[in-house]
C-alpha cells in the first residue's frame, strides 16, 4: 500500500516537472514549429538563478519569483536576435539552438565553476498520512505545478495574448490578417516558454545537483512529451507528461533506470508510428 502510494507520488512529481518544462516547448513548437534545443538550458538558467539568489542571501521564494523574469527577458532577447531569423528553416533552428545550448552551458560553467551547486528548498522534512511519510517539498512541487498549469491554461484561454496565440497556432496567416502582430506574438510566446522552463528549473533544483549540464535530461523527455502528446495543445502536454512521466517512474521500480529510459523511448517511437501528430494534437 505504501509502495503504491509512494510510486504514485513519485510519478506525479516527475509528471509535474515535465508538465511545466514541456508547456513552454509545446507553445514554441506548436506555434513557431521551432525545435528549441536550448530549452533544457532555460531550465538550467532557472536553477542557477536560484543558486545566485540564495548565494546573496535570498530565499527560495524570491528565487521562484526572479527566475521566470530572468527567463522571460532572456527568451525575449534570444527570440528577437536569433530565433526569428531561423524560424523559417527547421534545420537552421536546430543548429542555432544547439549552438546556443553549448554556449550557455560553457558560460554557466565558467561563471559558477564546475562543482555541482546545492540549493536549499523551502520545506525540509516529510508530511505524514497515518504512518506513511513523504517528503513535504515534493508534495508542494506537485501542487504548485498543477496550480501553475491551471493558471497558465486559463490565462491562455481568457487573455488577449492567449487568444492571439491560439489563433496564430491555428493559422498564422489568418491571424495576421486580423491584426495580430506575428512578430510580437512569436517573441512573447518564446519568452513565455523560457519563463516556464525557468520556473521548472527552480522547482527541480532542491531535488538534484545543479550543474551546467542538467538541462539535457529534460530536453529529450520534454520533446517526447510534446511529440507523443501532441504539439501546440495544452491537453497534449498533459497527456504526454502523464504517459512519459508515469511510464518512466513505474518502470524504474522494476528495471535499471537506463533500461527504463530506453523502454520509454521505444514506447514513444511506437506511439509515433501510429499517431505521428501525437495523441491530442492542436
Amino acid at each position: 500500500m505504501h509502495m503504491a502510494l509512494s510510486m504514485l507520488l513519485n510519478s506525479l512529481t516527475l509528471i509535474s516537472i515535465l508538465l511545466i518544462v514541456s508547456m513552454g516547448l509545446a507553445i514554441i513548437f506548436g506555434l513557431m514549429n521551432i525545435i528549441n534545443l536550448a530549452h533544457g538550458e532555460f531550465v538550467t538558467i532557472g536553477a542557477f538563478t536560484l543558486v545566485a539568489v540564495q548565494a546573496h542571501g535570498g530565499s527560495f521564494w524570491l528565487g521562484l519569483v526572479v527566475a521566470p523574469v530572468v527567463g522571460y527577458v532572456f527568451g525575449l532577447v534570444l527570440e528577437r536576435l536569433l530565433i526569428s531569423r531561423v524560424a523559417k528553416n527547421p534545420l537552421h533552428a536546430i543548429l542555432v539552438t544547439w549552438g546556443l545550448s553549448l554556449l550557455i552551458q560553457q558560460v554557466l560553467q565558467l561563471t559558477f565553476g564546475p562543482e555541482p551547486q546545492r540549493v536549499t528548498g523551502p520545506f525540509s522534512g516529510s508530511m505524514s498520512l497515518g504512518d506513511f511519510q513523504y517528503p513535504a517539498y515534493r508534495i508542494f512541487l506537485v501542487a504548485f505545478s498543477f496550480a501553475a498549469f491551471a493558471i497558465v491554461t486559463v490565462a491562455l484561454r481568457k487573455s488577449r495574448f492567449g487568444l492571439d496565440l491560439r489563433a496564430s497556432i491555428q493559422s498564422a496567416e489568418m491571424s495576421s490578417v486580423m491584426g495580430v502582430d506575428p512578430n510580437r506574438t512569436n517573441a512573447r510566446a518564446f519568452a513565455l516558454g523560457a519563463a516556464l522552463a525557468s520556473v521548472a528549473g527552480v522547482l527541480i533544483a532542491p531535488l538534484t545537483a545543479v550543474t551546467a549540464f542538467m538541462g539535457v535530461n529534460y530536453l529529450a523527455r520534454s520533446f517526447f512529451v510534446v511529440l507523443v502528446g501532441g504539439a501546440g495543445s495544452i491537453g497534449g502536454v498533459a497527456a504526454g507528461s502523464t504517459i512519459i512521466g508515469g511510464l518512466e517512474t513505474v518502470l524504474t521500480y522494476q528495471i535499471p533506470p537506463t533500461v527504463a529510459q530506453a523502454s520509454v523511448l521505444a514506447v514513444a517511437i511506437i506511439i509515433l508510428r501510429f499517431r505521428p501528430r501525437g495523441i491530442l494534437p492542436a
Partner: protein
Amino acid sequence: MTQALNSSSPARIVTKVRPRGLRPVTIVSLVVMAAISAMSLFVDGYTLSSYRDVLLLALFALSLDIFWGRTGILSFGHATFFGLGAYGMAVTTIRFGIDPAWASLAGLAVGVGGAAVVAAIVGFFILYGGVRGAYFTIVTLALTIIANQIAVGWSEVTGGDSGLIGVPPFAAFGLSFDDPVYGFYLAFGFLAIFLFLSLWILGGRTGLVLAAIRDDEIKARTLGYRTQFILLATFVISAAIAGLAGAVYATGSGFVAPDLIAILLSTEVIVWVAVGGSGTLIGPVIGTIVVWQLQDRISSINYAAWPVAIGLFFILLVLVFPDGLPAYVVRLAQKLRGAMGRQS
C-alpha cells in the same frame, strides 16, 4: 501515340545520367584521395595513426551525407551508429575470448549489424509512420541521449564511464593491421571504396529518385515508388557504414568510451558535413579533415574552448553561410568576378 513510346529495339535500361567522361566531383575526389595517400609517405608513424583516425571519421561523415545530403532529413543520432559499431567491436573482441584470427571480423559483424538493426527498427517505426523533418531529428537526438546513458550506465558490459580498453588491432585473413602504415591503408581503403561507390550509385538514377522524394514525396509515390522503404534503406545503409567506421576506429585506437556515442560527436559530424557541403560526398570528407585539425588545435589549448567554438560556429553557420562554406566561397567568387567584370 503511346505506341510511339514502344520501340522495336530492346529498351536501353539506364543507370547513368551523365555524358561520357567523369563528373567534376569524381575528379576532385580522385585528386583528394591521391593527395591523401601520397601524404602518407612523408609522415611518421604517430601522425599516420592520427590520419588513420581522421579518415575513419571522414567515412563517418560520408555515411551521414549519404542520408542527410540526399534525403534532406537530418539525423542527429548518427553517433549512436558510430558508437554501436565501436562498442560492438570492443565488446565482441574483449569479452568473448574469440580466436584472434576471427575476432575482428566477428566484431565487425556485431558492430555493423547492431547499427543496422537499431537503424532498421527505429527507422521503420518513424519513417513508415510518416515522421519526417524536425520530428525525425528529435527522435534521433533522443536515441543518442539514451544510447549514451546506456553506455555509461551498463558498466558490466560497456565499462561505464571509463569504457573498455584492449581492443586488438584489426586482423583478418592472416593479416594484422597493427602497423601504423597498414592501419592507415585499411582506413584509406574503406573510405575510398565507399566514397567511389556512393559517387557512382548516387550519381545515377538512385540519386535522382532520392532527390525526387526530397522535392515531393507524395508525387514520387504517385509514380509508383515505395518511398518509405527507399528512405528506410538509405537510413539503414548510412547507419551500417557509420557502424563500420566506428568498429574499425575502435581497433585503431584500442579503446572505446562513452564519448564515441554522444551528442557532441553527433553535432561534430554535422559540422564536418555542413562545412564541406552536404550532398557532395567528397565535401564532407574534406570538411572532416579541415575541421578536425582545427578541433585538435583548439582542444589542446583549452578543453572547454571547443564546445564554445562549435556553438559559435553553428550560430555563424546559419546566419552567414546557410549553404555550407564551399557554396559561400563560390558565391563570393562569383560576386568578385562580377565586380571585376564591371570594372573592365
